[in-house]
């Protein structure tokens, strides 16, 4: 049994070693965000958690994550007590950095466990050598997902841990342990509410596969097999999880405050957490209109504060949401394509991963030539190349029967990323437009990537819609 999984352990160790080497790499403001939350949850009573605002990075994740930070803070005090002082803004001693980085690496164990559970659900590939097995490819693409590596271990976030919970819940469904899966998802929603946008699909899936106990012979729904008992069980699990999470705050009458922190409706603008890349196109329209407005003297430049320009809001949204969302999409695609979904999904996984790295770079273009991000640029390129080469190579082997993975238009699009990159990073900064229109590279990149992602989404929907019976059969087995 151990020998069977030795390759998995090797993959897990390998990626963990790389994560350890990245401990001293650049970290973004998210590092300070989490340090602040450690301090807030450790030093202040629960009633203050969602009111505290010494730092600009207020607690805006659901209660379970706050408790998670509280738990971490008990280990933090052995590394450096000073990081737990709320007033120590931007405190980043070597011990603090070490602790925070190690905490991400350790909580990634949840992700590693979840990947292992998913691999167990893969189809058996007897007789194939290790590198060709679908479980091996899945494990590598998930564990070594470079988007996740870059966001979690350079910029600093806890996405690995959260994805782990999500993946585990999905794995439990494949293992027919539906109630556990539902519980895990409910817990996830209370860790990071962004996953709400996956909730509708998830809910419908649960309804379809768990509440309706039987299918007709051709795989379609048997309406009469609806089980109210199961629905009630699901409801109970979800409600009780939310009760445990928000209970203390409801009792204290703080629910309003918590909700306002979780969903910051600034000036009445509603942030829809779905299809975030649509925002890129929105961005352009917004920017174009504002410039036009200024030129036509319809808008007054002096009235534009950072908060009033929707572009600024969207930027902030992109900063907080995008890093979490894009790797999620790639991970889901990877998962679906390995576990008996249409083959073409896999190709889009690579697509999205590459596009993701482009997206992640846009904050750097904003920062212009600060050297810190540039030092990390080779790592990002190397990891991306690593991931891409492995993906292409293993996918070609896995799906060689269904023809080439990407058609010529798609290949051309992907290749087009190279000149785009060169123009934005090297050529444009040397032109005179750099000072007058500094956002053009950002704009170009966003548009190009948004087009690619939209294209992928549309083709994804089409391919899923085109093959309903096969996927239905797979899920009902």
């Amino acid at each position: 049994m151990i020998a069977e999984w030795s390759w998995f352990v090797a993959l897990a160790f390998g990626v963990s070693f790389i994560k350890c080497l990245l401990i001293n790499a650049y970290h973004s403001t998210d590092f300070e965000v989490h340090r602040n939350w450690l301090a807030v949850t450790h030093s202040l009573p629960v009633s203050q958690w969602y009111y505290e605002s010494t730092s600009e990075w207020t607690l805006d994740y659901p209660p379970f994550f706050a408790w998670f930070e509280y738990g971490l803070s008990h280990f933090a005090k052995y590394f450096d007590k000073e990081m737990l002082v709320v007033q120590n803004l931007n405190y980043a001693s070597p011990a603090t950095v070490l602790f925070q980085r190690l905490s991400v690496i350790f909580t990634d164990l949840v992700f590693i466990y979840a990947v292992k559970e998913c691999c167990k659900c893969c189809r058996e590939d007897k007789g194939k050598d290790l590198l060709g097995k679908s479980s091996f490819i899945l494990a590598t693409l998930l564990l070594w997902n470079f988007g996740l590596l870059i966001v979690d271990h350079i910029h600093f976030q806890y996405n690995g841990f959260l994805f782990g919970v999500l993946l585990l819940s999905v794995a439990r469904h494949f293992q027919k342990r539906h109630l556990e899966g539902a519980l895990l998802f409910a817990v996830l929603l209370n860790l990071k509410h962004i996953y709400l946008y996956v909730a509708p699909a998830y809910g419908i899936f649960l309804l379809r596969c768990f509440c309706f106990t039987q299918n007709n012979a051709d795989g379609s729904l048997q309406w009469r097999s609806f089980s109210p008992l199961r629905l009630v069980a699901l409801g109970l699990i979800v409600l009780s999880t939310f009760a445990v999470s928000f209970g203390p705050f409801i009792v204290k009458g703080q629910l309003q405050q918590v909700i306002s922190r979780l969903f910051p409706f600034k000036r009445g603008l509603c942030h829809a957490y779905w299809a975030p890349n649509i925002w890129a196109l929105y961005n352009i329209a917004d920017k174009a209109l504002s410039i036009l407005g200024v030129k036509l003297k319809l808008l007054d430049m002096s009235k534009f504060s950072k908060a009033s320009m929707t572009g600024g809001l969207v930027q902030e949204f992109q900063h907080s949401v995008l890093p979490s969302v894009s790797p999620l999409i790639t991970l889901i695609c990877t998962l679906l394509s390995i576990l008996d979904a249409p083959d073409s999904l896999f190709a889009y996984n690579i697509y999205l991963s590459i596009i993701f790295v482009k997206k992640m770079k846009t904050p750097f273009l904003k920062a212009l030539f600060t050297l810190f991000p540039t030092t990390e640029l080779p790592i990002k390129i190397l990891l991306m190349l690593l991931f891409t080469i492995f993906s292409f190579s293993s996918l070609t082997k896995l799906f060689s029967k269904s023809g080439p993975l990407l058609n010529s238009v798609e290949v051309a699009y992907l290749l087009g990323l190279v000149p785009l990159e060169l123009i934005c990073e090297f050529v444009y900064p040397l032109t005179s437009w750099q000072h007058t229109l500094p956002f053009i590279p950002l704009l170009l990149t966003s548009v190009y990537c948004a087009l690619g992602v939209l294209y992928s989404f549309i083709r994804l929907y089409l391919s899923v819609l085109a093959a309903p019976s096969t996927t239905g059969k797979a899920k009902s087995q």
Partner: protein
Amino acid sequence: MENWSLVSVCVLLGLTTRWAVSFSSYSGAGKPPMFGDYEAQRHWQEVTYNLPVQEWYFNTTDNDLGYWGLDYPPLTAYHSLLCGHVAKLINPAWVELRTSRGFESAAHKLFMRTTVLFADILIYFPAVILYCIYLSDGSSKRKVATALCILLYPGLILIDYGHFQYNSVSLALTLWGIVGLGLGWNLLGALAFSLALNYKQMELYHSLPFFCFLLGKCIKQGLMGRGLLLLVKISLTVLVTFALCWWPFLSDPQLILQVLHRLFPVDRGLFEDKVANTWCSLNVLIKIKTLLSRDTQLLLSFALTLLSILPSSIKLLTKPTLWQFKLALVNSSLAFFLFSFQVHEKSILLPALPVCLMMNELPLMAVWFLLISTFSMLPLLLKDGLLLPYTVTSLAFLYLGVYLLSALDRSPEEELRLGSCHKRMQNYLSKHNLSLLVKCSFTVSLVAMAGLSFTSVVLEPPARLPDLFPVLVSVFSFLHFLAMLLYFNLVQLTEPSSKKSQKKTN
């Protein structure tokens, strides 16, 4: 997966590891007035860019040899000149004569690290890949695994990308030499090694095996016919290479003498600092540094070194195969390391290179040696603030060696290549017990390394013995190196001379 993609993955992993290590600190960071090797390299760029060739190795008003004077052969100087030109294009302040001393900035660090990476990609990586594909045995997966392990050898990564040096250039050129000779491209091999010698004079540690191997090949081809022709061609190649490298200095014998004086500083004594060789370790018990006169020390060191490399070289001369060549390289460089004059701890990289090449045939011993070699540099790495990369890369290397190369599974008698020697040993030790003994020793050694590393970092040495931990580290490493020297000599010398009894050898 196809081979090319596997190889690409290995190369990318190697590059990623290197660049991640480069985030760490470098030698002498923020430590005026002398700083460290990083500043030395930057200073050489300044000197070679601003001063004429004739002044590079001389003490002048513009060139203070006391402040990191050039002490490597001309090729290093030309490399520094090239880097200096690039530096000037990016930021002239980096190589401004005299005013750029001690210049430190994030941008400069990025530039310097990039020069190392560039040299690596250009010269070292292709050499390793070529070696593994063409001169390594086994399935293609095994070759790729070997390549990955060689590329992830911690010692070289930590010194080049942490401490800061360009060892990969000279080692890569030597490797090109080995590859050339292994594939029968003798002239290319000779050329590459001559270039290596002209890059770092420490490559002299490898010179005797190269000489014996080439001479042996010539003798085999018949000294009266083709062999003589080959000998002449090789000699000419070497001479021309040296002449080209030393061209600017050939006009004046004084210049050549001065350069040689800088390259071989006999005034600096038997050893400096703590190094895991015989003299430093002996010094713990008997203070030979003060007991014997400098001339006696020179003579003693010369005699012992010669004695220890003679058997290996003669064997190579009589049997010039690639396997013997690799063994001779190890034996020669290790002997020089242990017994020679003015050895630095970084010189352990010289035996480490040929040992890397043996990871396929002798995985356990190779991994063991390479881990000890990295461990022996621990005091230096701690001084440079490289504890984290040291820990991670050593652990990763150990894991890879055990998992990918099955180092622990392959230690029975045939794998240790002890041949006829073991037959005599079988009276005392059965095959099974020998393998058990070796594995146990390996484990104990690992635990001791981990323990010593931990105590060096965490504990304070007693006031009476401030150098306790560096001394313990060097003596521990020295004992291992001595044992390895005996082992590798045994393997080389007990290999049967006749072709009939050859099994897996090359």
